[in-house]
């Protein structure tokens, strides 16, 4: 008995530093943020009376609600397009590329992943801007007469996001496909299924959980991102993180920013609950 208590204490000593760090610099700051969201800012001072006015104003002011619906629309669009583009790519790499080239093919497919996040959005601006690469090529080929206005629109934001998440999803879906046992395919073939039938009725359903994990990851990272919409989407059709940053940097309205942050977290939590039954990760 005494020995097991001593053992426990030793175990605590190993776990404690990480736990204390997380409590001090993550859990407590989160509680401070909740506290701020219940305070008000009037003029330049913060009034420490507790009420839900900041949350009420979210539902009253149309530009806050518009920010949330912009965020949701862009995120859902990005998630769907990215999966549709990444799945065939991952499948071709896993099933059709010779085994010894697969690692290289995968490494190449995610190489631009390692450019700086800020720089990657800027690089898309180079391609999509009025005088950019895309417009110049299309004008040169005579496909269009006047340059397309893509930069500073939702299309640019979606393009930048899809680029990032196609790489991420290709990686996760590939990992999912290669760990499937070849016996499934053999069994389907023995039972007379064609290649397409095998894919549709066997391979695809087996990879759905992995795809859902990737989709959830895409949703979380996309809806919380500030950089891509700010650089590529500009100041039209603001998304929620842009509105939060405006409150912080321009207006120094920490209480409103805190309330909006908690609403953003609530949206992510709802998304988690909706996909929870798919998100049974192997190692938890």
């Amino acid at each position, binding site marked *: 008995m005494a020995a097991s208590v001593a053992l426990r204490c030793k175990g605590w000593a190993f776990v404690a530093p990480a736990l204390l760090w997380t409590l001090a610099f993550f859990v407590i700051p989160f509680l401070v*943020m909740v506290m701020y969201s219940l305070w008000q800012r009037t003029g330049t001072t913060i009034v420490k009376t507790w009420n839900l006015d900041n949350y009420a104003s979210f539902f009253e002011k149309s530009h806050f609600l518009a920010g949330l619906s912009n965020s949701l629309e862009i995120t859902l669009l990005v998630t769907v397009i990215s999966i549709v583009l990444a799945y065939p790519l991952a499948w071709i790499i896993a099933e059709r590329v010779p085994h010894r080239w697969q690692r290289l093919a995968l490494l190449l*497919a995610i190489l631009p992943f390692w450019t700086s996040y*800020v720089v990657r959005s800027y690089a898309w601006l180079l391609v999509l801007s009025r005088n950019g690469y895309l417009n110049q090529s299309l004008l040169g080929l005579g496909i269009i007469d006047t340059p397309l206005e893509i930069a500073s629109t939702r299309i640019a934001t979606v393009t930048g996001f899809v680029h990032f998440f196609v790489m991420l999803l290709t990686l996760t879906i590939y990992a999912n496909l290669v760990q499937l046992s070849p016996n499934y395919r053999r069994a389907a073939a023995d039972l007379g299924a064609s290649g397409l039938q095998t894919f549709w009725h066997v391979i695809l359903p087996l990879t759905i959980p992995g795809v859902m994990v990737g989709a959830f990851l895409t949703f979380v990272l996309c809806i919380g991102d500030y950089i891509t919409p700010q650089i590529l989407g500009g100041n039209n059709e603001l998304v929620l993180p842009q509105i*939060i940053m405006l409150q912080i940097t321009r207006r120094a309205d920490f209480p409103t920013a805190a309330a909006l942050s908690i609403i953003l977290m609530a949206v992510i939590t709802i998304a988690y609950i909706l996909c929870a039954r798919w998100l049974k990760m192997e190692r938890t």
Partner: protein
Amino acid sequence: MILRLKSLGMAGYLLLLYGFIFLPVATLVLFSFQEGRFPIPPFNGPSLKWYQAVFSDHKLTSALTNSLLVALISSAFACVLGFMAAYGFARYRLPGAAAIKATISAPLTVSYLIIGFGLLVSFNLIGVSRSLFTVGIGHVVINTPLCFAIIYASMGDHQLNIERAARDLGAKDWQVMLRVTAPMLMPSIIAAYFLSVTFSWDEFIIAFLLSRFDVTLPVEIWSLLRSGLNPKTNAVGSVVFLISVVIVLLLEFTIFRRGALRDRQS
């Protein structure tokens, strides 16, 4: 014939997607060698003058040093915290282990914007001024769960016997951890370290919210963006890309290759 068409279609799809994936990076790198003042077609060059401009820009070079310092030091902290926690959970039975694990992993599920903002208001409340130090604290918060997850996943029971042997031979607990367990787990510890270095090195929003006078490279690049399209931004972006790719390739050809070899042998 149908088969031929099918594989042609697949090759076309591969080409299209790889083209899409590489288009922005290729444009970025190509126009970093632009001779003129704008990184847009037509390309005239090559010229290294924008690289020269980057390396003679004091603000950019000191931001680069700041970024490296914050990344290397905060990742070391995150790795030590993550490794110790992984060791504690794998080797001792703790009451409430599931709840503690969930707490330590929680920052993985929250947007960086919210983590950074929470720290900002908290530091504000207790009067801590923003600096590279506070940025480092934020980066340890986001990277500790990552290091913990990677190292914990590689801790199996097969190392237990060796640890028991060390204990039987009189090693103390911390000696077992440092001189037996840590060397056995070195590949995953190094992988966790370099992954968090790249994450910290590239992190923008926490660094932006928590820094003031001394800033990290992504924040400095951000303020460079206000001048619009500029080949200098292309040059600094290409340098960052090169550094990250070198780190990734080093990892690929040292640790992971060795790990793959060992897996095959066993």
